């Protein structure tokens, strides 16, 4: 029983990280209509941005988080302007291949700049808080809290601002949105900025939970897509739910399967979703 609760806690932590990644991925999918294969590597770059801030200015990780988010938002918009914007008109599939190339470029750039070995933000072991027989790591609480705050901010943005509403409109019905005069290019830029920032946050939180490695994001890409599809593509709220479900399922699966098969569990859920309910839990827009 205690083990089950601990696994659930791990699942919620992983789920919060997945949710942040999945919200960005689903928004990009909704507005631009393509699966962004570099999203995991956006996460990794964000995590390494924070590492630089932490080591150079000797700041705590959470203080480096906003810097990493800003940096990655800028980089995401830059990549879009430099590459994706030029091929957006051709075919969504070309964009997909291009994002695959972007993923490789970012990953090898990380390896060239920061090196290929495992790194951590802070050395040392944290003493867990104990509530009865249950042990909770302070970092885990921080991760879930940070993710929750960011998700609330995104919710505010999507429901209260003009840009957020325009974004949802484009994701719901592209043609209708364009006729009503929504500035498509600006919406796309904002989508990249927010998607990039959320990915960076997810990467930093992942780095807090485990360690930093050039492939840290790539290995989470599949679970993130699984969360996106499970939640219904183009649905930020579905993505949050999907992230939590996938995260918990991956952790709980270690009760019966070797831990190395965790990504396979996420994948199996995704395939089941595609067969049984391809529109996702909350009906997707694409």
């Amino acid at each position, binding site marked *: 029983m205690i083990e089950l609760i601990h696994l659930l806690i791990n699942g919620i932590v992983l789920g919060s990280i997945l949710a942040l990644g999945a919200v960005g991925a689903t928004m990009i*999918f909704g507005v631009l209509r*393509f*699966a962004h*294969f570099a999203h995991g590597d956006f996460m990794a770059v964000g995590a390494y941005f924070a590492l630089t801030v932490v080591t150079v200015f000797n700041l705590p990780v959470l203080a480096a988080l906003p810097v990493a988010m800003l940096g990655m938002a800028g980089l995401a918009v830059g990549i879009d302007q430099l*590459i994706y914007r*030029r*091929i957006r008109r*051709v075919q*969504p*599939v*070309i964009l*997909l*291949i*291009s994002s*695959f*190339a*972007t993923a*490789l*470029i970012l*990953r*090898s*750039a990380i*390896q*060239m*700049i920061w*090196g*290929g070995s495992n790194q951590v933000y802070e050395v040392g072991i944290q003493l867990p808080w104990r509530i009865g027989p249950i042990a909770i790591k302070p970092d885990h609480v921080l991760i879930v809290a940070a993710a929750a705050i960011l998700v609330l901010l995104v919710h505010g943005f999507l429901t209260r601002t003009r840009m957020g509403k325009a974004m949802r409109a484009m994701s719901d019905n592209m043609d209708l949105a364009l006729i009503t005069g929504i500035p498509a290019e600006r919406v796309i830029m904002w989508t990249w900025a927010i998607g990039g920032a959320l990915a960076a946050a997810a990467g930093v939180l992942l780095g807090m939970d485990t360690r930093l490695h050039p492939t840290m994001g790539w290995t989470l890409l*599949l679970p993130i*897509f699984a969360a996106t*599809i499970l939640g219904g593509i183009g649905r930020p709220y579905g993505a949050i739910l999907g992230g939590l479900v996938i995260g918990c399922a991956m952790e709980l699966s270690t009760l019966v399967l*070797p831990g*190395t*098969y965790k*990504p*396979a569990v996420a*994948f199996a859920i*995704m*395939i089941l979703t*595609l*067969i049984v309910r*391809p529109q996702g839990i909350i009906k997707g827009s694409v």
Partner: protein
Amino acid sequence: MDLAGIVAYMPFFLGLVGIYAIMTLGLNVQWGMTGQFNIGIAGFFAVGAYTTAILTTGPADGWLGGFNLPFLVGLAGAVLVCLPVAWVVGRITANLRTDYLAIATIGIAEIIRLFVLNEGWLTHGTRGIPGIAKPLGMGTLNYTLVILAFVALIYVMVEVARRSPWGRVLRAIRDSEPATAAAGKDIARFRLQAFVVGSCIMALGGGLYAHFVGFISPEAFRPLYGTFLVWVMLIAGGSGNNLGALLGALVVWIIWSSTELLAGLVPVALIGSESAFRIFLIGVLLQIILVTRPQGMLPERRPPMPGEKRP
């Protein structure tokens, strides 16, 4: 490198080009002809390589093996094992849109890699399978000729298929699914067939690869080598054009090999890691191709419309 060194290197170089050419032809059936976005090439490549390795090696210590079967039986085994795997994958994904298919195939490749990594009784896990001999005690040169013969054979087969009514249906599905359905074609069935054919060609490439390098481990089936390079080759060569696929394999492999020389010229302190630098360069190359010439070096030649003169 002096001239003698280059001449000695040629068979090895051409052998790898041949193996990649086979995989690129397989991908061309799926992507170039049918429009199926398979980025799980590495998975089918691994299935073929491991099946061949298990079937043809001598007594095995700690993994399934010791069958000592002949070369051609090993290759046939690679295709026969890949057949049901590809059929199941194709069946599940047949009706998926491109993006979903992409995600699904990369997931399957990853699961195959995890399986190979974890099920040591079958595959020897991370330690890999050593001692896969070339058939009939051939050297690299002779075996390279065998590979090139297979390239020629598969090229002819795929080209015949492309010109056949079957190939026309595939291209029709790629260009307009509703129109093809309206013409009374069973789209799901044709898609499944194309997927299985393409995947089995990739498995055959994997089988040839196992004999060529003599040792296989899960490292060789990372998405980069197994999948990404093949995609760059097809796009650079011209998707839909089988000759373009061959040309793409040759040119991209030359470029990929020369990035090694290039990486050797730049001080390591500046780039950190040589292999990362090479991947970086090939990624940039693909972006440049996609932005400037997405149709590739040899674009697909479309048949003339009725009444139109062939240029």
